[in-house]
């Protein structure tokens, strides 16, 4: 039945079709290492915690890693940074493998089509997503999925811009990166990533206010309002300022990259997705800044994804189903309703 998988710095999300619904399965991309003496297995088992044991140590995976981190006063570790497997985290690969296997689940049948998102070529970081991409592809293939990979920004376009014939600008502001793709009739014209996102905001605000990052992140996610009026010294104020800085940075880089290509002279709609677009007032602020920026391309409508957190995963599912349809035959209508 085809699946989509968005492997993000913060969230790993699987999307699949189930009767009339699309089901998203989400897990935090994090783990926490504990001494076996800290906790007993029975405690963990009864609380239905996702954990593994290795060399006398317990690793709590996913969502629970954060909960236990607060309880034990430790930091949850993250296998990924800036959208790819973190080179600094030695346990990254086994952990991410376990989480992905869990979220993705077994394929319904051999060679079920799966589409994974991957970050675009970064323009301001010295890193290369190819290794990460290949690792994830190999991992899924090993599980007997037939795997395809698309850029995260293209996923947003697939998910949000079908009314515009998949022409437009897709922007995904996640935790580690901001991914941007410009597509014309479903074909990417330009695709890249920028090394700033939600994590960058957390870090900057934490530095300026002296509050711990986790605290800043929690405040941010609890629903603050982005606005121009800010209070001195408040976390909200600092958040607004850094959101503003992030947007300016993204738009500036977007314009710089646009100068390198010659896009068709049409109006491009813009779709925004990713967890960092969730705050109230984000769309309004971004739209104002984008219109002021006088981009090299004409912008028509600017819209927020219906489900910003799931947009990329949904786009991957669309891509996977398209591939699947191609294999079944050009009949197109045949794959519906198999359950």
């Amino acid at each position, binding site marked *: 039945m085809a699946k989509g998988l968005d492997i993000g710095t913060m969230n*790993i999300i*699987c999307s699949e*079709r*189930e009767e*009339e*619904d*699309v*089901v*998203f*399965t*989400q*897990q935090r991309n994090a783990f926490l290492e504990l001494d076996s003496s800290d906790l007993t*297995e029975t405690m963990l*088992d009864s609380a*239905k*915690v*996702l*954990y*593994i*044991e*290795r060399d006398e140590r317990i690793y709590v995976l*996913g*969502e629970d890693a954060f909960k236990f981190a607060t309880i034990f006063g430790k930091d949850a570790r993250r296998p990924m940074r800036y959208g790819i497997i973190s080179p600094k985290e030695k346990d990254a690969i*086994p952990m991410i*493998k*376990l989480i992905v296997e*869990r979220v993705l*689940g077994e394929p319904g049948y051999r060679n079920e089509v799966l589409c994974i998102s991957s970050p675009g070529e970064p323009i301001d970081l010295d890193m290369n997503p190819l290794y990460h991409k*290949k*690792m994830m592809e*190999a*991992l899924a293939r*090993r599980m007997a999925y037939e795997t395809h990979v698309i850029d995260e920004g293209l996923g947003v376009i*697939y998910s949000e811009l*079908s009314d515009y*014939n*998949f022409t437009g600008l897709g922007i995904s502001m996640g935790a580690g990166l901001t991914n941007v793709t410009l597509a*014309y*009739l*479903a*074909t*990417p*014209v330009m695709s890249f990533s920028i090394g700033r996102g939600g994590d960058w905001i957390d870090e900057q605000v934490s530095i300026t206010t002296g509050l711990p990052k986790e605290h800043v992140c929690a405040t941010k996610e609890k629903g603050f309002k982005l606005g121009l009026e800010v209070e001195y010294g408040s976390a909200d104020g600092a958040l607004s300022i850094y959101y503003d800085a992030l947007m300016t940075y993204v738009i500036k880089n977007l314009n710089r990259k646009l100068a390198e*290509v*010659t*896009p*068709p*002279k*049409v109006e491009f709609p813009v779709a925004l997705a990713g967890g960092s677009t969730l705050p109230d007032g984000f769309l309004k602020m971004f739209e104002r800044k984008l219109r002021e920026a006088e981009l090299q391309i004409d912008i028509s409508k600017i819209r927020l994804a219906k489900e910003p957190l*799931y947009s990329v995963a*949904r786009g991957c*599912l*669309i*891509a996977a*189903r*398209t591939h699947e*349809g*191609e294999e079944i035959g*050009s009949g*197109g209508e045949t794959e519906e309703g198999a359950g």
Partner: protein
Amino acid sequence: MDNTSSPGILQRGALIYYVGSVTFAAGIALLAVGTAFITISRIHYGSEPEKIILSVISTGVGTTLILTGINMMMKQTRYGYYIVGASAFISLLALLIFTSNYPHNWFYPLISYVLTLYIAGFLALLGNAFANVILWMIEGKPEAVVGREREIKIYTDEEIERDIEEATRKSIELSASELKFKEPGVEEVKLGKTFRETRGNITKVKDDIGEAKSLRKTINPGERMKSGSVEVESVSRNLGEILRKGAVQKGRFGKIKEEIKDEMKKFYSSIRVTRNR
């Protein structure tokens, strides 16, 4: 001849095509003149040696030129041009030997040697052309140049560089796609009891993702069909669609241009297939 790789080769491709057609035309003319000469001067066994030599030379050279010209106009296999050159040379050599030995030394066994030489060259040229036609039919993409070369333009260094970069990137990606990673050290891992029970937070959204269908349509507008005129129709429909959509776009920009060029290629090739049938 690898087309599209560099301006030099492209120009050579076009040049050899034109030289080939001139050779071909010259051959036809020579053959016609020779035949006319044979008829007009009523050549027979006892005719004057000069007349016989002249008629043999004109028809013989004419035939060789025609075949060589045809071969030059075709896309050749790796050693094609060497084969063509050698065969033409053999045929002409046979004619030369004939000229210098007729009529005084024109006896057995020289006659059979010369005749064999000429026929060998003739058959090699014919065979090479035939092999190319067969190859071309099997490949299903006619590379015989008719009209194509003219449409290919000279690429700028920038475009070539970008193409090379793109190609290298693709080959790197492909090379790694068969890569298998060894299982990282998880063998001695013990999974928690409920590990297999939880997959994660589940969110259900009512959604029929109809986008998959529109995406399929956008990616391949018009279904692909097998052969003949139907294909021409579908390809031209695609082309029309792309051109219509592409008309809004001014300058050159990679993908769309490639797409249009591709469709053009398909368009021309399918026309030729139909015409040749």
